[in-house]
């Protein structure tokens, strides 16, 4: 049952360590990729934060928590995820509505739910729960999905996306929508329906435009042309492209980036951390960093392709692709080819919430991956 490609990835499959890891539901290859990425991330963050030990300490604590979450989620058997999916989804929607009604405002949007013990961001949870729900729904339907199933899937994606976009949190709404989209994509939507839908959406844009308020139009225009807001996102993009471009082929060296060190670059520890990296490590560094990401994504797709059942496949495939979208949107935005929406560089940017969600997603991937092997035995 094991293919040759699997041999390649699991050359040390029979070793003691590997068996130990499997009992712990850990996928060693994925783990290795994540560890390398996080180590790089801490190095970049150290430079971006002006060598602040406090920042590094906090980030290490977050990474540790995120790892614990990943480990915990990896122990949940896949069929449990399947059984919980609709309940989590319902809970998530209720919480999103609660946030809109009674949420706390922080950093410009209503995203937080104050549970007194912890402040909780339900939209983060939806990044995982939306693909779970749609996978739950689609995996029981005949293949390929009929138009009615596709329509219901669409509703399941649009509902949380709209609620999150209303907070307003464009970045997260985008990620939730893509997560849902990829489940449908992997679920076997016919190509002609897929392209038809894309075409229809493009055609609807001018209609939507008619119904927008003036200030909303202003915002969309600024999103695509940062120069319209020279003091805001325009300034961000100008400074980040200077930082990236001046990095050249080999970069200025770790801790030597003038743009970032001299405080020209805004949000340089969070959303714009990639510019710090590119300035100090050049295009060579970029190739290495993007390769690490690509390795993790492809490992994720590989786990998906070998998952035991349809639910696992769809979920794993979608989570891997969402990780990719994270990366693509962030780097695209920092390098000035995509609009500035608040999406962090996954597992590198300073900040805790998205890290926990991402690692929970990798926990699911590991659960799906090891689940297969236990059965295969």
């Amino acid at each position, binding site marked *: 049952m094991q293919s040759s490609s699997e041999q390649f990835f699991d050359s040390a499959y029979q070793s003691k360590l590997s068996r130990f890891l499997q009992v712990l539901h850990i996928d060693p290859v994925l783990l290795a990729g994540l560890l390398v990425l996080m180590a790089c991330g801490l190095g970049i963050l150290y430079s971006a934060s002006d060598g602040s030990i406090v920042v590094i300490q906090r980030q290490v604590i977050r990474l540790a928590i995120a790892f614990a979450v990943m480990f915990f989620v990896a122990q949940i058997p896949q069929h449990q995820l399947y059984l919980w999916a609709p309940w989590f989804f319902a809970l998530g929607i209720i919480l999103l509505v609660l946030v809109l009604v009674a949420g706390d405002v922080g950093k410009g949007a209503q995203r937080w739910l104050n549970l007194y013990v912890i402040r909780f961001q339900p939209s983060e949870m939806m990044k995982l729960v939306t693909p779970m729900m749609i996978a739950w729904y689609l995996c029981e339907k005949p293949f390929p999905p009929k138009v009615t199933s596709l329509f219901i899937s669409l509703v399941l994606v649009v509902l949380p996306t709209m609620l999150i976009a209303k907070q307003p949190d464009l970045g997260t709404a985008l990620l939730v929508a893509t997560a849902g989209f990829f489940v449908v994509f*992997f679920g076997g939507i016919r190509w002609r329906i897929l392209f038809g839908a894309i075409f229809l959406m493009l055609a609807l844009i001018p209609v939507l435009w008619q119904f927008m308020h003036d200030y909303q139009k202003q915002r969309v225009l600024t999103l695509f042309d940062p120069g319209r807001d*020279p003091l805001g996102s325009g300034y961000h993009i100008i400074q980040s492209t*200077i930082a990236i471009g001046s990095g050249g082929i080999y970069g200025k060296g770790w801790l030597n980036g003038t743009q970032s060190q001299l405080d020209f670059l805004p949000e340089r520890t969070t959303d714009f951390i990639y510019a710090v990296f590119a300035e100090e490590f050049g295009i060579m560094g970029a190739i290495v960093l*993007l390769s690490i990401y690509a390795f993790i994504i492809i490992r994720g*797709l590989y786990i998906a392709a070998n998952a035991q059942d349809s639910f696992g496949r*769809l979920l794993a*495939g979608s989570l891997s692709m969402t990780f990719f979208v994270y990366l693509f949107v962030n780097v695209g935005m920092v390098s000035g080819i995509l609009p500035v929406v608040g999406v962090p560089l996954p597992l590198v940017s300073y900040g805790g919430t998205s890290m926990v969600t991402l690692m929970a997603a990798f926990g699911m991937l590991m659960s799906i991956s090891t689940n297969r092997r236990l059965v295969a035995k």
Partner: protein
Amino acid sequence: MSYRSHVSDHSHEASTFKFRAIVAAVICLLMLLGLLTRLAWLQIVDYAHFSDLSEHNRIRLMELPPTRGLIYDRNGVVLAENKPTFHLEIIPEQVDDMEQTLKGLAEIVTISEAELERFKEQLKVRRSFQRISLRTRLSEDEVARLAVNRHRFPGVDINARLSRFYPQGETTAHVVGYVGRINQKDLTVIDEGNYRGTTHIGKTGLEKYYESELHGQVGRQNVEVNAQGRILRVIDKVAPIPGNDLTLNLDIELQRQAEKALGDLAGAVIAIEPHTGAVVVFVSKPGFDPNLFVHGISHKNYDALRHDIDKPLFNRAIFGQYPPGSTFKPFLGLAGIEQRSFGVRESIYCKGHYLLPGDDTERKYRDWKKEGHGTVDLTKAIEQSCDVYFYELAYRAGIDHMHDFMAKFGFGSRTGIDLLGERKGILPSTEWKKRTHGRVWYPGETLIAGIGQGYMLTTPVQLAVATAALASRGEKIVPRLLKEVHNTQDGTVKKREPSRTMIELHQESHWDVMFNAMKKVVHGTWGTARATGWSMKFKMAGKTGTAQVFGIAQDEEYDEETVAKKLRDHGLFIGFGPVEDPVLAVAVVAENGEHGSRMAPIARDLIKRYMEKYAE
């Protein structure tokens, strides 16, 4: 579906999935290559350009917020201005001993625990050359004391900034409104780009309504900074464009006069020029000090305002909805003769109460005068405010005919005054009742509506606009607080043309009938406001009104005396003058003012003063 097809379905699905996973992987890689191409473009092709930029990147962009436009009354008296306020700031790198400095400063000016904490917080995160504010809004005494002791504290600076100030305080609180710090809710409806550097935004009143005129355009400057980020020089500058100044139609002297005349009563006074719609007086009492809100009102002050039984934050002129009572009668009287329910001279006999024809219950609809008014025609019915006449009129006309005629005067719809959130009032009809209450209209309710009670509700502004329409013989204008917008940059003045709709009567002479009847209210032997009229030099037309108060919500606890006061009737008065050629139309609503006749002098004195000031 059979088991076999289910299995083949599954294997088909798995193979499709594998194929799509490969497609996805390939797309990922291609897109990453695309990203790399973009990065290579920046880092290899354009390297020289960006490298050069970064070498010389000593340039930082700073925002320059515009100054907010000023607001004046019609004679140029300032209602809202920008006053320099002084802030105590510290540049940490220039301070030798921070602890010592803070201790020393605390002896000269008062520094609260919270301010100190915030300062120390900032001290950790800001760079050492950046100014950190320690105290805002220093008093003049404090500024003087600091100036004397300045030499003792290197690195301590007094910085002047502009803050909004309302010199008229309470008097204009409900018209001009106030600005406050921009909050999350404001951010969702403004063009953020233009508000970079701006800290305050119009929250209520004209400050909010004309925010786009008052704010102006943000400017920016490029400054050269050294390696530590200190500003060396300004390279270029796009100056901010200050906001436009507003001149209002308001006359602050008359405004004060009206405010004073209301005395301790809560209520509203509106005065409008009938032909132009210019709002000369806009009083809602009690008011509050808008300056409290500019820098963030304290909890204590806010609670005091909120829990005040007179609700000072409530703009009664546009939000308050009151039964018009007898002030409704002139309009209804016109409806009667216009729609031929009554002849101009036709009279009925008033014996102190009215019985609804065909009603078996024999319920008596009472007149305010128990013994009755005797034989009454329209003129006498207005002069003495006879209820029975209007019961009969309402009965003959029917609620829907009444509704249609009253709607022309603007009852039941917004006047369109330049303030946000104006209420509509209620002008009932059978259709309205079905829509909102889901019930049919009862004939008895028509009678109650005939004396301006029951469902009927109006805002003081509505009442003033309707009175103005009467005074101008049918010009129903849109009331305007704003007279002109002055562009301080190019000196141009924008004016809004008055906007009006005409109310046509079948017979022009009907206006004269009503003018005459309303003149008798003030100047007639039996007029309800005759006490006001006897010493007047000009002739005023008016109508008194008294609206019943239905009581206070059960769960609210107030002491007996307060309750007793709160249960008194509302007093209303509408009037315009001089009758021959009206220059001002006035509506007065006084909560618990007991009788409208008491409010007539307020209108009289406003018109008198207006004539002295503006009519030759």
